[in-house]
């Protein structure tokens, strides 16, 4: 269980998280939804300690985060599209992370195999396509059997086949008991994955709860429509999705 209370984060004058309180259940897949600028990425970065909130508390598995870094050993993180220096190879990133985690357990490369890019791990990122680099990022997040997966827009830039592979893997992780948080503004992507929904708007949790509850409440079986209905259809950005 991840519990946050009153998380507040400003960038200059702009309030990105505005007293955000939320719960993310263990062993389930939580879809982090919301329009661009709602604070999804910031929320995830705050969970990871990459961004420092001005106020609020976070507890993961009952442990209050106090600035010590150890808890991150249990987290696999896939950031939004990143551009590592071109001379680095996927292998380098893997060994880097392994070194820092101080583990001698070999990284789990089954996802790389599933993507069919075992060879690409040995090539510099600079010569690889954007999609392939994104797959390598995914491999990195899953490689060290994390208890918590934080995936920020993981499907962006992936072809449908790779999306399928990734989704299967996410489901497999849940079966293993891993907690997964996925952010996306493309709701369809999460249709078949999400157990719970945490909907952010203007830096607050606008709605949170189980998908089943959502569909029950709204009578909609489509996640997208359910959310739209929930919010009274007054949110134009959902029309885009």
């Amino acid at each position, binding site marked *: 269980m991840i519990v946050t209370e009153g998380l507040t*984060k400003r*960038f200059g004058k702009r309030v990105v998280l505005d007293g955000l309180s939320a719960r993310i259940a263990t062993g389930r897949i939580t879809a982090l939804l919301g329009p661009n600028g709602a604070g999804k990425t910031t929320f995830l*970065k705050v969970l*990871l*300690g*990459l*961004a*420092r909130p001005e106020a609020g508390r976070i507890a993961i598995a009952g442990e209050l985060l106090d600035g*010590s*870094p*150890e*808890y*991150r*050993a249990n*987290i696999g*993180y896939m*950031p939004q599209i*990143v*551009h*590592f*220096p071109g*001379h*680095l190879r996927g292998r380098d*990133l893997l060994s*880097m*992370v392994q*070194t*820092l*985690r*101080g583990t001698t357990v070999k990284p789990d490369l089954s996802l790389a195999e599933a993507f069919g890019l075992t060879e690409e791990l040995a090539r510099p990122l600079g010569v690889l396509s954007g999609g392939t680099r994104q797959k390598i990022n995914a491999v*990195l997040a899953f490689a060290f059997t994390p208890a918590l997966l934080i995936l920020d827009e993981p499907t962006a830039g992936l072809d449908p086949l790779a999306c399928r592979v990734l989704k299967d893997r996410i489901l497999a992780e849940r079966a293993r008991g891993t907690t997964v948080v996925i952010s996306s503004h493309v709701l369809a992507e999460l249709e078949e994955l999400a157990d719970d929904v945490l909907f952010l708007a203007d830096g607050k949790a606008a709605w949170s709860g189980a998908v089943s509850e959502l569909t029950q409440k709204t009578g909609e079986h489509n996640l997208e429509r359910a959310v739209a209905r929930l919010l009274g259809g007054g949110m134009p950005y959902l029309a885009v999705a």
Partner: protein
Amino acid sequence: MTTTLRLLLLVVRESLRGRWLIGLALLLAALGELLLRFSGGGPTTLVSLLDVVLILTPLIGLVVGTMQVHHAREVTELLLAQPIARGRLFVALYLGTAIPLAVSVVVGLLAPFAWHGLLFGADGMQLLGLAGAAALLALITTAMAFVIALRADDRVRALGIALGIWLVTAVLWDGIILLTAMLLADRPIEVPLLIMLALNPLDIARVLLLLGSDAAALLGYTGAIVQRALGGAAGQVALVGLLTLWILVPWTLASRTFRRKDF
């Protein structure tokens, strides 16, 4: 500690893999070789080398340092998402960037002289002094570059600030000092002058190198206070101390920024 060390090795390896440090060393070596060929060694070469150290090294430290920080930004984020304390990561990032840079500057500077067997010649001590000052300046300016790059997320802006700081420290500040000295020529200005010099690490390094060179003959003329403050071994030790302090100032600033920064 072992984590920091592992990290440091990692960053150093990354710095070296970038290959531009090797290019930088080769460039400086080529420059030194040219100097040697055209001025035939001796005092003229040393004076030119002094220019390289005082002008080029800070420029390299500031520009390359700023670029390295930005270049490593995404890797830094990846590292930050690992179970690593930020303080350690900063130490590793800074040392891993600054030390290889300083080493490549020193190696580049000394290589042609070593090649021609001049390193242990008459000017050997002065050469080593130059190399030492270059290393310190590289460490200082890289720390400054960290402050700049961590505070200015935009690459172009950061580079602009870095160049601006170089322009001020390498050129304009001395112009201001000269102007002050001219305007207050009739008053005792040694103390404010010393303070103004101390505020610019490039000036400290320059005065330090002056003390070790032929030009030191002149410093005797600058009046009792300058002579007493800077002359002699104690003065030189104090100047080296000041330079070291000049590593710590931007280091502390950069470290604070890094520990509080949102990535």
